[in-house]
């Protein structure tokens, strides 16, 4: 028998943020099965440790565990798939998104185009864009998750938005011509 109170605390402090965790993992890994694996693994890691700390930054702590687990998983995946370079896997377009521009011919063209543009961002910019624009987290929280100073969060967001704006204009222009 394990401690049911610990499990209840885990559910209320950590699993409370499961949607946020899954969304981050889905954007970082690029496909559904990998996001599923990463979040499950992250939860097991978090469960072992969450009880030795307590407080109100549980979300940032958990999101950081999810993020690190995603990058571990991508590295692991790369080890078995050597013809793809490390940079391509970590910093390139996630596998499931590579065909997105073709799929964009359908009625969800705009959505597919925007998704492909985000997916095409280098991971360091993609993660801050997802945390800020979709998870709506503060710079302080993002700084804790990504483990960089707030100034770096600021410059990465700025650069990430420049890149996004450019690729979205480029793909939009190509689509119209």
């Amino acid at each position, binding site marked *: 028998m394990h401690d049911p109170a610990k499990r209840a605390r885990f559910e209320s402090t950590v699993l409370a943020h499961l949607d946020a965790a899954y969304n981050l993992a889905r954007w970082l890994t690029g496909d559904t099965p990998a996001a599923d694996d990463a979040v499950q693994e992250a939860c097991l890691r978090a469960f072992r440790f969450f009880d030795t700390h307590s407080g109100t930054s549980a979300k940032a702590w958990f999101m950081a565990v999810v993020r690190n687990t995603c990058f571990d998983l991508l590295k692991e995946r790369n080890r078995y798939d050597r013809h793809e370079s490390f940079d391509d896997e970590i910093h390139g377009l996630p596998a499931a998104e590579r065909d997105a521009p073709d799929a964009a011919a359908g009625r969800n063209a705009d959505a597919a185009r925007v*998704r492909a543009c985000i997916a095409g961002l280098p991971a360091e910019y993609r993660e801050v864009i997802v945390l800020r624009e979709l998870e709506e987290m503060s710079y302080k929280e993002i700084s804790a998750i990504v483990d960089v100073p707030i100034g770096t969060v600021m410059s990465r967001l700025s650069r990430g938005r420049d890149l996004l704006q450019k690729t979205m204009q480029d793909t939009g222009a190509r689509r119209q011509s």
Partner: protein
Amino acid sequence: MNCTRMRQVLDAWIDGELDAATSTEIDRHLAECPACLALKGERGALRRELRANAPRFEAPPALRAAILARIEQTTLPAPAPARHRQWLQTAAFASIAAAVGLVAGLWIERPLPDDSLREHLVASHVASLTDPQRLITVVSTNQHVVKPWLQGKIDFAPVVRDLSADGYTLLGARLDHVGDRQTVAIVYRKRNHVINLFAWRAADYTAEALALQSARGFGMATWADSGLRYAAISDIERTDLEQFARLMQP
């Protein structure tokens, strides 16, 4: 403020991360610099496009169950491990500790504010997110349906507003208990983020100013009016939660 400085701080300003003094300087610069104003417009368009077309992927329902099942497995009592096995476990543990250790430091002991009520409210918000059946009893985007439904169930009348013009969609309401108090939760959604607005009777609270705080990673806005207390909880952007709360003020 010049254009170079402006480009450095524009994004932080859009994100509501700058102090009032800097914001005033920015306003002044934007009023006289068309180039920076154009960039601000592009950033606004980018945000609208992202929020309209980039999905916030929701965790599949089976994921939660799978996680709990695996936790159950790993916490079953293991037979006393042989020595080398124990060493392996220690090594595995250490590598995980290294991965997690980087961020463990920021989990600082800071209990929620005095009111244990708030703890209950967050728990109720979380429970409603993880169990969609629990989220809403009366499903309606029309406040003229939700209000009468509530009137038949409770002996107080919380505000129910139509904020659809501001992007907050009313989803419905449910009755809830927080501690031994009868509460009602009015449920809104903005951009795939759920907001639970709790209301309950508190005769000694004729009025209380809007206060914002963070609780277990969620934002919480509280206020009181005419003997009713309110708490809005969500993981939505904090500036939006504040706007939502302001729109609810008398």
